[in-house]
């Protein structure tokens, strides 16, 4: 890919705060969705003539349906605590990428039409009329937010810009301004069952190829079953796991773990997608429809458990919302949480001693771990708060000898977004993606300088794709990003596996 005009930001340290540069990212817009893509999701095809009335009506509707939206619009005091917390602000210096300023793009309109002060003294409280320019400004800056929730950690009231961004995108969709990347993908899930539009036949062929690869590699026949009725476990994983690197190595890892522990499992072609972009566009109905596919697949296949593969926002939707959107799960085995994360499963098996692991097979790497934003700040693993930080690290340490964490204020709940989350993983936003990755990349560079870190592991399909694209800009090979289950796959010794091939590595 050509470098284009993107200047890779140089940060003194990961969270170094720039001086504001008003207008730095003005006018940046992802491609608009075509009318048929919008209509497929139940939205108007293009900007409706009465957009102003409809936008305000939608805003009022959302404020009545979502407490977070209503409260967060009212209670911000502009203290400034969030202003230096967004990776897009750190990477672009555009002040409208400061969380509070991003919220104010919408709050200023809310005030104008729905508050006493804004109706009668707009100049006093920064209230403004809703115009077409304002709509397009929303479209621009609400697509420079990855809904990563880092700001909500640091806000004294927990104001979550993601909630405002989602509402703004929902309002935009309601008046016919849809985003191509997200809306096209959601349409594919509704019709085909996954983001890529892979039909069952193609999917089956891909999985068969993978089975052959594993057998060539290990000498062991490891199955990747699909649509097998009566299996115990339904695995729902991001469709990127079926074809993209390094995702696919993660899928091989899950398959090996399932194989070695002897459980019966299956994928579903109907619910062949863990990702749920309905979250990104902030539309409950679409998010619910996507989730319902998983319920139907679980019922049709008669499984007892549901396990999710490595995907960040998918795990947030799965862990935090699936019970709401597609539950209750009373037809599944009550001895297991619904759903489970593949890392919860693998860590449990490791603890029970059910896997033979040779850590030295990962000795050529020094690994660090990138906490994915949605997993870190919007979900949990295991029984204890913070399990989402511990369990992935425990698994990595069980399969790798060399593990180092990045700087404290860039991991765990303070983790920095990869720069491509929230529906921004599209080439038309590449400039933003490269700049938004700067804080994370700077933290990684530091750990490379100080501890010789060579690889970064992640548990999110979007993070993996984003990093494999932007890491080369920051001086790393694109395969420096690895799946956690890729590390597991490397270390695991299957029963009957030939090992002589590996001696040379």
């Amino acid at each position, binding site marked *: 890919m050509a470098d284009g005009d993107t200047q890779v930001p140089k940060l003194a340290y990961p969270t170094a705060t720039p*001086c*504001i540069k*008003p207008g730095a990212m003005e006018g940046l817009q992802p491609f608009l969705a075509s009318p048929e893509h919008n209509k497929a999701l139940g939205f108007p095809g293009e900007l409706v003539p009465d957009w102003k009335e409809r936008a305000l009506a939608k805003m009022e509707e959302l404020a*009545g*349906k*979502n*407490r*977070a939206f*209503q*409260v*967060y619009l*009212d*209670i*911000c*005091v*502009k*203290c*400034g*605590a*969030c*202003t*230096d*917390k967004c990776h897009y602000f750190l990477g672009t210096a555009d*002040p409208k990428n*400061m969380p*509070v*300023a991003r919220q*104010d793009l919408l709050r200023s309109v809310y005030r104008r039409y729905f*508050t*006493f*002060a804004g109706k009668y003294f707009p100049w*006093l*409280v*920064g209230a403004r009329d809703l115009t077409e320019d304002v709509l397009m400004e929303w479209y621009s800056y609400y697509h420079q937010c990855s809904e990563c*929730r880092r700001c909500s*950690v*640091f*806000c*004294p*009231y*927990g104001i*979550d810009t993601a*909630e405002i961004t989602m509402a703004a995108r929902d309002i935009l969709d309601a008046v016919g301004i849809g985003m191509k990347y997200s809306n096209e993908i959601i349409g594919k899930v509704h019709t085909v069952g996954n983001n890529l539009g892979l039909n069952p036949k193609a999917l089956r062929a891909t999985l068969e190829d993978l089975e052959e690869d594993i057998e060539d590699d290990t000498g062991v026949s490891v199955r990747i079953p699909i649509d097998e009725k009566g299996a115990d476990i339904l695995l729902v994983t991001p469709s990127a796991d079926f074809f993209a690197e390094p995702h696919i190595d993660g899928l091989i890892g899950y398959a090996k773990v399932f194989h070695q522990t002897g459980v019966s499992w299956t994928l579903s072609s109907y619910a062949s997608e863990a990702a749920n972009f309905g979250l990104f566009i902030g539309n*409950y109905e679409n998010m619910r429809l996507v989730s319902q596919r998983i319920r139907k697949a679980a019922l049709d296949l008669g499984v007892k458990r549901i396990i999710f593969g490595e995907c960040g926002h998918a795990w947030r939707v799965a862990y*935090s*919302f699936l*019970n*709401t959107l597609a539950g*209750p799960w009373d037809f599944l085995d009550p001895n297991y*949480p619904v*759903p489970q994360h593949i890392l919860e499963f693998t860590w449990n098996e490791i603890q029970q001693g059910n896997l033979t692991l040779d850590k030295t097979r990962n000795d050529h790497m020094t690994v660090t771990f990138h906490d994915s934003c949605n997993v870190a*700040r*919007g*979900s*949990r693993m295991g*029984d*204890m*708060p*913070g399990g989402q930080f511990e369990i992935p690290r425990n698994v990595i340490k069980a399969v790798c000898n060399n593990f180092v964490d990045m700087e404290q204020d860039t991991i765990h*709940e303070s983790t920095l977004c990869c720069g491509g989350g929230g529906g921004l993983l599209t080439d038309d936003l590449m400039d933003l993606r490269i700049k938004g990755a700067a804080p994370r990349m700077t933290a990684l560079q530091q750990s490379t300088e100080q501890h010789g870190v060579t690889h970064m592991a992640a548990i999110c399909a979007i993070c993996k794709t984003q990093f494999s694209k932007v890491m080369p800009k920051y001086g790393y090979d694109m395969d420096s990003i690895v799946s956690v289950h890729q590390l597991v796959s490397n270390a695991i010794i299957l029963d009957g596996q030939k090992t002589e091939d590996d001696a040379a590595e």
Partner: protein
Amino acid sequence: MLSTIYALLFYMATALLVVGVAAKIRKYAVTPAPLKIPTTPAPTTQSGVVLRMAREVIFFESLFKSNKWIWLFGWTFHMALWLVIIRHLRYTIPGNTPWLLDFLQPFGKYAGFAMVLGLLGLWARRFLVDRVRYISNPSDHLILALIVAIGLSGLMMKFVAHTDVVAVKVFMSGLWTFRIGTLPSDLVILVHLALVITLMIIFPISKLLHAPGLFFSPSRNQVDNPREQRHIAPWAAELEK
């Protein structure tokens, strides 16, 4: 005449404050939270949430994580404000006040300075820090000016130009039983009280709503138990029919 105007203003401001805040609280309470969105790691029990909220309200935990300067100024201001309010109870409650309030009373005197200093620190940031300057509206400055002026006029009466505080007490405590006494007519107390009335009136229509609003923030007040307990909003349950 002046005393009557002030008395009526106090009644009006109190009514607006109580009705306005109650209406907002009601709105926050009846609006459903359709999804589980606690900022994680979050407590897995209700008592854990009470503790989390207590740490936010008493120590400003998240703000402390975020920015030590804002925390220092903001926390100082709010805690001093509590002491100042406690001090003022003696001037507004009829009769003798309980011993605990009497014990805390003198602290309020010095808290007045801390309060103003904290506010000035926050205000300085609105001029000095480019990011905070960018997000500040006129109302953000005016609210600070208002509370600083309340603080300064209060300190004036304590340390520079005393007012007849006994008469003030008779006036204020009389309002509870609808007896309108006579306010001292020196300028400082009149300004002080007028500003307080203004603050009461703007409370329910301004960002001061952060005080009750914090308790309704789903990212802070929700229990992290979505797998164990199904959470569904009434309007979302309708979609299942």
